[in-house]
C-alpha cells in the first residue's frame, strides 16, 4: 500500500472513531441524518476517494468501505464513493452531495426519462441522487436519478439504516451505456457490502476480546476458560476469512472490468462468516451484548443486514457454482487459482 493510501486510511479511521459515538449511532438509528459528520467526511475528501485516478487506485480506496463498516458508520460513504466511480466509468459527471445505489429492476427508461420504483434504496430519503442500472434492448445503461419529487416509502434494514422505496414517473435522468452490465453493477455494490462486513467483523473481534479479558466470573476473566478461548479462535478465523474475502472484492474493482466472480466469492464467504461471528460474539458477551446500551448490536445488526443486501449467499453461490460446473472437472482448479 502506498504512503498516501495508508495516510488516508489512518485519517479516516481516526475521523470515524471520533464521529461514530454511541449517541450518534442511536440518533441515526432513530432516523436522524448526521449532517455534521457527513460534512466532515466530505471535507476530508473521503466521499470522492475512489475518483482520484492514478494517485489512489479505486481498488485501494474502496477499502474505506471496510473502515466505515468497522465503525458502523451510519452514513452512505461507501455508496457515494462507489457511485462516483461507476458514473465516471460510464463517462458521466458525479453530482454534489450524497449519492446512493440501487438495482433498477422495477424501472423503465425511455427518451431520457425514468419511470417505476427503486426498491430498498440505502439512505434514499437523505440522498439527492441515486445511481442505478437498467437494461434496454440488451444494452445496460447507468442512470443518475435525482430524488427530488420522487414518491418516498420509508423502510429500514435490521440495523435501522434507511432502506427506502422511491417511485418516479417520467423523471429526467442522466444516462450512458454501462459496459460492466447489470451483473457488474450488482457485483460492485455487493463488493462494498462484503468489505463493510469484513470491517464490522474485525471490530466485533476486538470488542469481544476486550470483553472476555474484562468480564470476570468464577473468580477469573471469562477469557481464561478454554471453551471461551476456542470460540474466540473460531471467531478470529471467520473474521480473518472475511477480511481475505474483502480484499478479493476490493481488487476486483481495480480490473478493467468489474470482476463478478471474485466479488461473488467474497460476498458468499463474508456472508457466511457474518452469522458465525455475530452468534459467537453475542454468546461471549452474555446479556450485556443483548442490550441497546452496549455497542455490540450496532455491529451485529449490520452484519445480519449486509449479508442479505445486493445478493445473499444463495444467489452468489449459484453464480459461482454455474461457472464452476461450466469449467468442468479440468477447469475447476484453474478457476480457483485465477482468483
Amino acid at each position, binding site marked *: 500500500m502506498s504512503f498516501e493510501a495508508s495516510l488516508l486510511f489512518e485519517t479516516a479511521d481516526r475521523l470515524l472513531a471520533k464521529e461514530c459515538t454511541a449517541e450518534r449511532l442511536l440518533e441515526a438509528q432513530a432516523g436522524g441524518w448526521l449532517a455534521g459528520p457527513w460534512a466532515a467526511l466530505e471535507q476530508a475528501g473521503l466521499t470522492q476517494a475512489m475518483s482520484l485516478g492514478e494517485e489512489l487506485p479505486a481498488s485501494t480506496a474502496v477499502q474505506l468501505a471496510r473502515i466505515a463498516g468497522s465503525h458502523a458508520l451510519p452514513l452512505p460513504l461507501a455508496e457515494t464513493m462507489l457511485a462516483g466511480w461507476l458514473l465516471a466509468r460510464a463517462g458521466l459527471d458525479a453530482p454534489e452531495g450524497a449519492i446512493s445505489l440501487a438495482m433498477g429492476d422495477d424501472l423503465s427508461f425511455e427518451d431520457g426519462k425514468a419511470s417505476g420504483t427503486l426498491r430498498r434504496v440505502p439512505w434514499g430519503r437523505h440522498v439527492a441522487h441515486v445511481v442505478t442500472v437498467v437494461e434496454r434492448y440488451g444494452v445496460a445503461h447507468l442512470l443518475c436519478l435525482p430524488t427530488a419529487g420522487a414518491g418516498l416509502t420509508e423502510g429500514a434494514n435490521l440495523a435501522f439504516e434507511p432502506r427506502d422505496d422511491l417511485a418516479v414517473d417520467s423523471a429526467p435522468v442522466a444516462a450512458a451505456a454501462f459496459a460492466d452490465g447489470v451483473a457488474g453493477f450488482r457485483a460492485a455494490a455487493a463488493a462494498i457490502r462484503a468489505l463493510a462486513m469484513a470491517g464490522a467483523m*474485525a471490530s466485533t*473481534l476486538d470488542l469481544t*476480546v476486550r470483553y*472476555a*479479558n474484562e468480564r470476570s466470573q468464577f473468580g477469573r476473566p471469562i*477469557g*481464561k476458560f*478454554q471453551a*471461551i*478461548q*476456542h470460540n*474466540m*479462535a*473460531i471467531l*478470529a*478465523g471467520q*473474521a*480473518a*476469512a472475511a*477480511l*481475505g*474475502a474483502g*480484499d*478479493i472484492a476490493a481488487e476486483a474493482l481495480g480490473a478493467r472490468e468489474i470482476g463478478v466472480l*471474485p466479488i*461473488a*466469492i*467474497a460476498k*458468499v*464467504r463474508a456472508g*457466511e462468516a457474518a452469522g458465525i461471528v455475530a452468534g459467537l460474539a453475542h454468546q461471549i458477551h452474555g446479556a450485556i451484548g443483548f442490550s441497546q446500551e452496549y455497542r455490540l448490536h450496532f455491529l451485529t445488526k449490520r452484519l445480519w443486514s449486509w449479508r442479505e443486501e445486493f445478493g445473499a*449467499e*444463495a444467489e*452468489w*453461490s*449459484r*453464480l*459461482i*457454482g*454455474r461457472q*464452476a*460446473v*461450466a*469449467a*468442468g*472437472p479440468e477447469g*475447476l*482448479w484453474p*478457476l*480457483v*487459482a485465477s*482468483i
Partner: protein
Amino acid sequence: MNALTFPTPASSEAAEALRAEVRAFLAETIADRPPHKRAETWFGFDAGFSEKLAAKGWVAMTWPKRYGGHERSALERYVVLEELLAAGAPVAAHWIADRQSGPTLMKFGTERQKADILPRIAAGKCFFCIGMSEPDAGSDLAAVRMLARKVEGGYVVNGTKLWTSFGHHAHYMILFCRTDPASQRQEGTSQFLVDLATPGISIKPIVDISGSHHFNEVHFTDVFLSDDAIIGAPGNGWQQVTSELALERSGPERFLSSFELLVRLVAWLQSRPESQAESQAEPQAEALVGRLVAHLAVLRRLSRSVATLLENGENPGLQAAIVKDLGATLEQEMPEVIRHVLALEPMVESPDPAAAVLAQLILSAPGFSLRGGTREILRGIIARGLGLR
C-alpha cells in the same frame, strides 16, 4: 502484527509461466492416476515421481544452488506445490524433506550435514520422516521422554517414536528428544539427524483405519549417534522444533486434501442426464459447489499471504494456525456435505470414481484435524495470539 494481519500475497508473471509448465508436466506424468489415488494428495507415495519432479527442478526450489537448490522464489515454490496438490500428484516421498527437514538443516545444521544431505534431497533421492510424537507425548510435545544420553564421542539413544509417517520409506529422521536426563519440559531437548540404517533402530508398521500402512512406530535400542549427528546447539531443541512447526502449518496441503471430491461433484453435475438436471436438487448442488469454491479461494489467499510473510522473514505462527484450523475444518466438511448431493454409497473399490474418492476421504478425514497439531491445540495458539492466555 495481529491475528488479522494478512498482507496482499505477492504475485509475478514468472510464477504464472511456471504454473503452465507444471500443468503440462502433470498432464503427461500422472494422466493415468485414478481419482481415488489422487485423493491421497500428499500422502500418495511414489519415489519415481519425486525423482522426476526433482529433475525438473521442482524440489528444493528456494534453496541455494550450492546445496542443489534452484534459488527460485517462495512464490514460485507455492505455485508448484498447489498445482501438485490440486492435481493429486503423489508427492509424499519428498514432501517432508522439502517442507521442513531440509529447511531445518539449512537453518541449524553444520556445513557438513548440509553438504552431505541437502543435494540428495534436492535430487529427489533422500526422504525424511518426523520423529516428534511418543506414546506419552502427543499434543504435549514437551513431555517427550526419549533420551539421548551423552557418552564419549556421541550419544546413546533409547525409546520409541510413534505415528512416524513414511518412516518405513525414509532414509533419515529428524529426531526430537531429551539430551539432559535431569531436564523438565522444554529445557534440555535437542534435535538429531538420524540415519535410519543405524544399528538398533527397528521400524514397525501401524495400520490406519483405512487398512493402509503409512505410519509406524520406531524403536531405538542403544542406538549410538556420533556428536556430529546433533542439529544446532545441544539444548536448543525446543526453539528449533517450534520454528519447524510454522513451516508445517500454512501450506496448500492444509486446505486441498478434499479437493478431488469437489472435482468429482463438478464432473457429476456436468455429465448428469437432462432429466436430472431439471430436478429440484439442482440449484442446491450448484450453490454448494459455489460455496465450497468461495471457501477454497479465500483460504488460498490467506495461505499465500502467510507464504509472503514467511518470505519476508516474519514469524506468522498465529496466521499459520488460523489457516490450518480453517483449512482442516473445510477439508473435513467437504465429504460430509458433498455426500448429501451425490447420494452414493462410499466404496473403496467402486468403479464409480466419485464413490471411491468419497470412501478415501471419509476414511482419511479424521486425521486432518490431528496431524500437524490438533484443532484444540491450534485454537489455543490462536487464543494466545489474541491475548487471552
